[in-house]
């Protein structure tokens, strides 16, 4: 027991604070973030008024060394004496809140003192860049994160050259425990596409400062997937449609030479996966646009995004972010849907009919 107290509960060393920064920046929409330390990695979660959540999972593989010593189990049984059975699993992993902006600012201290940080390390005209210079070796990105015991601050130590920066982030009691329930077992629909396409669509729609974003998914005739994002606000409405197999009229070059030869890696389909639990109906969920927009940073850096909605209408956006070649991390968002009024639904219905008409027209041409 004595030496257990001396060793920290958790200690990890990362050789690239930039990776951590890039991932955590995706969920930087709230002042406080929950941190849960577990055997597998660090989970950062951020909550916005209980209707939106963002998670970034820093897998232990992102760190060059990762030690987590699970706290002694009696600790949790003392604390949760009345309901120890179901609390045992979760309470052993330390959970606390920290100031996320402070953490992000700290991680950015790297490279500040490097006069060449504006140039890439491989720049030829950089006289100080040798094979052994700090930024090539990644030395100036060394960062150590540790958490000694319950209630102690989260300590981040950054070392570069002869400067050592120590940051102690105050840990706060966790405020929320419940995640937004998302039922993976009863998915209403699922689609996978490139992150940048979703980003482009959202940025395009954002220009009209809409209030709501409606997500429409259905199977058109001949089992063609149809996915659309339509935004509506006081200034009007706009819609971005994602169609697999573009109609020939919209494709400028004649389809004589197969386009897939040029870039075989690129899927000819805009939507990589498209599943609807009930193909007969049109799925339509509405969310607050400003909340969806908060995930824009993740959209812009993600290679792929999986858009899922469960039967309750909860939207899950899972972003696959390539932090370095071949190594992927995931950032998740969940959104609670807006409850639609009857009148609003009627309006959407008419818009949708038009869309359906044009869609079928395009199919006829093909």
């Amino acid at each position, binding site marked *: 027991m004595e030496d257990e107290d001396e060793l920290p509960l958790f200690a990890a060393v990362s050789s690239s604070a930039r990776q951590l920064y890039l991932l955590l920046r995706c969920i930087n929409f709230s002042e406080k973030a929950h941190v849960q330390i577990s055997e597998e990695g660090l989970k950062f979660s951020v909550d916005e008024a209980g209707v939106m959540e963002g998670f970034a999972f820093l897998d232990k593989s992102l760190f060059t060394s990762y030690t987590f010593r699970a706290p002694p189990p009696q600790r949790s049984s003392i604390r949760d004496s009345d309901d120890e059975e179901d609390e045992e699993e979760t309470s052993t992993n330390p959970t606390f809140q*920290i100031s996320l902006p402070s953490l992000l*600012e*700290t991680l950015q201290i790297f490279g*500040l003192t490097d006069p060449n940080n504006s140039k890439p390390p491989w720049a030829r005209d950089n006289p100080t860049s040798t094979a052994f210079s700090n930024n090539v070796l990644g030395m100036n990105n060394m960062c150590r994160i540790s958490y000694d015991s319950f209630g102690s601050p989260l300590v981040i130590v950054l070392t570069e050259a002869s*400067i050592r920066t*120590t940051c*102690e982030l105050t840990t706060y009691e966790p405020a929320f425990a419940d995640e937004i329930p998302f039922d993976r077992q009863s998915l209403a629909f699922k689609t996978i596409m490139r992150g940048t396409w979703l980003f482009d669509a959202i940025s395009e729609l954002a220009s009209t400062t809409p209030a709501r974003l409606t997500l429409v998914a259905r199977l058109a005739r001949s089992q063609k997937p149809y996915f659309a994002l339509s935004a509506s606000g006081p200034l009007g409405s706009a819609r971005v449609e994602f169609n697999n197999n573009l109609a020939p009229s919209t494709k400028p070059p004649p389809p004589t030479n197969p386009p897939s030869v040029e870039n075989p890696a690129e899927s000819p389909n805009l939507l990589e996966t498209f599943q609807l639990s009930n193909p007969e109906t049109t799925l339509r969920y509405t969310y607050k646009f400003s909340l969806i927009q908060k995930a824009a940073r993740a959209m812009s850096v993600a290679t792929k995004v999986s858009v899922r909605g469960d039967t309750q209408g909860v939207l899950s956006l899972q972003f696959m972010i390539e932090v370095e070649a071949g190594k992927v991390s995931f950032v998740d968002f969940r959104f609670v849907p807006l409850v639609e009024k009857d009148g609003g639904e009627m309006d959407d219905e008419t818009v949708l009919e038009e869309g359906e008409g044009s869609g079928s027209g395009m199919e006829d041409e093909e």
Partner: protein
Amino acid sequence: MRFKASIQNITTFTKLTASLNSLGPLAWVKLSDDQVCFTIIPEQGTQVWAVLSIDTIFETYTVQSAANNVINLEVPLISLNRALKTALNATSAQIRLTKKDNMPVLALTIVTTSSSNSYAAFPTTGANNNEDAFETSTFDSAIGGGNHETIITQEVPVRVLSPDIVAGLHEPQCREPDVHIILPPLVQLKSISDRFTRLAVVGAKSGMGTTSSSRTRLEVAANMHGCLKMSIKTDAMSISSVWTDLNNPELDPSQVAGGEIGIAEHPSTRMKQLGSADGRSEEGWASVRIDGRDWGKVMSVGRLGGRVIACFCHEHALILYVYLPNDNGEDESVLTVCGSAVTSCPNWSHPE
């Protein structure tokens, strides 16, 4: 009362005025036979007492007055800096004290040679015409001449201070410092301290208690083992950066009162006994607390690129000596920047 000089080192002079301007709007400039002093005493914040040897910025320098050939001027730094900026590409620049409508002004006469790009493609003709233009006039070279000589005169209104006004102004006396250390490049220090100040604002926002935004109190400390520490504390976090392997210059016995004995009894000798070179020890630090924004302004003297020695009087004052490099490699000119510690002077931090 006469003052006339040609400016030898326009870039240094411009950087100096820009740096000083960030610390205070008005400078007391004392021109005497052997040196030029720039002094800034703002209502609150950091004082600057700069002593420049004349050849740091001037050459062919003449100063005459009834009071021992000393002229005291109050110069608005922003105007002087703006005037000097136009001289950055000048071939020559002169400064003199004159009167205009009975108002004393510092007149800068700046001669620039601007060559338009199309003519610059023919360097030989351009050079020939340039010489012609010199001999004849500056105006008739518009067609034939490649280079145009332009004379710009900038006038900076100043106030002449009588000797009895400045008689009461003295460089603040401070006790012998506990720690003296050569600072890392100020640009590096500034980038970190600016980040700290921003962190404090972020931290104050996320902190539960509503802390006033003025509380960006940086704590700067150093020991006699080559360590410098800068830290800031907010509700949400505390962060500190430690520099190691810096240099603590040796004291010169001839400069310290009491010679060898004086050094043996010097506070810094005592501080040498404490602390460690890795900066992990709690002991041996001389620290001062300063306002983050003020510190950022002080750090702007880093653009002069001189060697900086910081002298720490524990919980009292921090004095920075900035040695400006000269052409001959020796550094003679000294900028003294004194910041009193926040503890002894609570209204030091800026309002808002």
